[in-house]
């Protein structure tokens, strides 16, 4: 059996800050990858640290305590994959991080937001271009500062936090029954990915096991979301390079998929579909028989337009060797999900931590080798194809009518539970921690965008400013998912 996509740990004994840093360094040196790493303030100025690590054995957790006076020596220089986590811990808990090279705020306001001291370059013919927070399209806000020599970008500094609405605190303040609706809006285009990770954490903590068929319905929801959002991204890239048939046709195909989601759950974005204890909407036998015909037609049209895209010389000329992220850089920065796979990393939690749905019906791992915009576009075309084939198989599984939701009973005291779900952007991670009375005292949500934004900044180095739109679209990151 592969390791499960969740972890539960009760009454963890925290390491002192020195031992914690030592243990974390040792595990990362041995090849483990940090999935998440966060801090929570306890009483008396103690900061509780939690690091979730992954190696071939599955998930493991490290728990430590640090105090504000002593601080915590930063490991970012040695392990750049930790840079955003250490910045976030510093911001959320105030814990000093001596040795961190760049404790830039993640999402807290620098008052006023525009007064932030960006990196600057000096020299003849050097200039800066500032874009945002409001952009030219119908899109979320974020600020981009390009440091350029002529058209060439030396570095891009990204300033986020404009969408910060305090969602983690709200989940703790509100009744647990209200949490799924909040979680669905962490990143509204990843409602299923986030809600499934949340359900996994909460169900693992409460000791609730849903039937295999419920897990398959959840995976059907997740793959529909993946196909729809990959199509959105492809349509965006196509439009940005003036490949208009791709823009309109992929856009139209997306409509087919999100309307399928609506037929199944009442929402084009999968809202209200997944809930702790099961799913609110199953798939009756007649519907399950009908959808594969729609998907078959979809597949034919998808292949037709993708073939046009992939054989067009002007498309290839525009997308090859633009915004390249090497495998080494992707690994070093801790990039995740489709961006990492486009840079040839084997990183898909549906394969590493398949859970029951993807154990019963495995999802073949897709990847590309070149790490450029072309690779990220090609990967998405490839993943759409794989997901549709998978959906055809999943819909043939009998008994997808969902049973009623199972009740989530009282939660155990002093327990940490973490759920992982490979959403369309990458691994989505939710962590819950209860206090001595079994009430939630900490909630951490992590969208894959949090880690991948810096990858976008690095991808643009040495490229032209005019390459930014297609780089941005090919990374397709969430502002609100990062800003929380």
């Amino acid at each position: 059996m592969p390791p499960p996509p969740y972890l539960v740990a009760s009454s963890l004994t925290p390491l002192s800050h020195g031992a914690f840093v030592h243990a974390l360094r040792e595990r990362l040196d041995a090849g483990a990858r940090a999935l998440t790493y966060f801090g929570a303030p306890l009483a008396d100025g103690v900061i509780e640290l939690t690091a979730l690590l992954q190696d071939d054995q599955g998930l493991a957790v490290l728990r430590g305590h640090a105090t504000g006076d002593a601080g915590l020596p930063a490991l970012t220089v040695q392990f750049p994959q930790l840079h955003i986590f250490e910045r976030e811990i510093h911001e959320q808990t105030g814990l000093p991080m001596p040795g961190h090279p760049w404790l830039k705020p993640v999402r807290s306001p620098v008052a006023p937001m525009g007064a932030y001291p960006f990196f600057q370059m000096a020299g003849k013919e050097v200039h800066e271009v500032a874009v945002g927070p409001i952009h030219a399209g119908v899109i979320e806000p974020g600020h981009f500062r390009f440091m350029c020599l002529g058209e060439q970008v030396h570095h891009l500094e990204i300033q986020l936090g404009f969408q910060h609405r305090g969602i983690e605190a709200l989940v703790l303040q509100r009744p647990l029954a209200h949490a799924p609706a909040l979680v669905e809006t962490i990143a509204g285009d990843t409602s299923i990915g986030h809600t499934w990770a949340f359900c996994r954490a909460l169900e693992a903590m409460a000791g609730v096991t849903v039937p295999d068929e419920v897990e398959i319905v959840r995976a059907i929801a997740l793959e529909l979301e993946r196909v729809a959002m990959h199509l959105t991204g492809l349509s965006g890239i196509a439009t940005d390079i003036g490949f208009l048939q791709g823009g309109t046709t992929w856009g139209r195909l997306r409509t087919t998929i999100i309307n399928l989601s609506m037929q199944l759950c009442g929402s084009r974005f999968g809202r209200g579909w997944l809930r702790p204890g099961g799913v609110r909407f199953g798939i009756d036998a007649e519907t399950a028989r009908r959808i594969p015909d729609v998907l078959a037609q979809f597949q034919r049209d998808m292949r037709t337009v993708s073939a046009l895209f992939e054989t067009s010389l002007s498309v290839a000329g525009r997308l090859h060797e633009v915004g390249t992220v090497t495998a080494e850089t992707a690994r070093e920065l801790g990039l995740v999900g489709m961006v990492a796979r486009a840079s040839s990393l084997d990183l898909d939690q549906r394969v590493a931590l398949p859970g029951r749905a993807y154990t019963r019906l495995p999802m073949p791992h897709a990847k590309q080798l070149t790490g450029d915009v072309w690779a990220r576009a090609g990967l998405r075309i490839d993943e759409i194809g794989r997901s549709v084939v998978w959906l055809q198989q999943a819909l043939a599984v009998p008994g997808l009518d969902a049973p009623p939701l199972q009740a989530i009973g009282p939660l155990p005291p002093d327990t940490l539970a973490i759920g992982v779900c490979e959403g369309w952007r990458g691994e989505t991670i939710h962590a819950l921690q209860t206090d001595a009375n079994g009430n939630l005292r900490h909630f951490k949500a992590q969208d894959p965008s949090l880690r991948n934004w810096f990858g976008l900044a690095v991808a643009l180095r040495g490229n032209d400013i005019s390459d930014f739109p297609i780089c941005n679209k090919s990374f397709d990151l969430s502002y609100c998912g990062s800003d929380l």
Partner: protein
Amino acid sequence: MLRSLRVRISQGRQYIGDLRTAAPANFRGMPVIADVACAPACRACADACPTHAFVALDPVQIDLGRCIQCGDCAPVCPEKKLTFANACHTAAVLREDLLISAHRPAPPPIAVSTALQKQFGRSLRLRSVSAGGCNGCESELNAVGNVNFDLGRYGIEFVASPRHADGLVISGPVTRNMAESLQLCFDALPRPRFVLAFGACAISGGLFAEAPQIERQFLDANVPILYVPGCPPHPLTLVNGLMDLLGIALP
């Protein structure tokens, strides 16, 4: 060339001919309150609602401006009096028109504004600002211009610069970190200009109404001319609201 033709043929005809009568299948668009009595002292629906959309109980009154269509209320009602309909004629001109009950099951029809019709009825340019939106609303706003809904056919389009815009479409609850940029953007719109609230967050703060990171003074000072409810609203909800208000292609 042949490949290109094949794609064009596969595309067929996608646009929805009559936007007003289109009804999205199984869309959980609007709560429907059955006219039956509540169980004594029951407040199961209100407790289940994450946005306090049940503003009165027995008789039940729902604020569509807060409702996020999650449907978490329906299964907990012991009288089974809550269901959902695929309605997308739910936009309203007045905030209070979004209150519905068993006796007033939907917002009143929107009357044509002759002033707005004269100014914008044949050409309307909109600037979208997401201020804490989760990309649900933004996705549906983008869809308004796609090959299916194609609102461009009536001269309604989203533009890049606020200088080119007649109206500002707000999505999201308006975060403190976006408040200043939102104001700057609106200030750049030439007059006459207006604000339109798209989605539960923009209308009422939605799920985030109580969050200290929200700062909604802009919406107090600039009252929207149209409220488009939902989480996210269906593109047709905006389309119908705008077409009715501007008197476009009246039946």
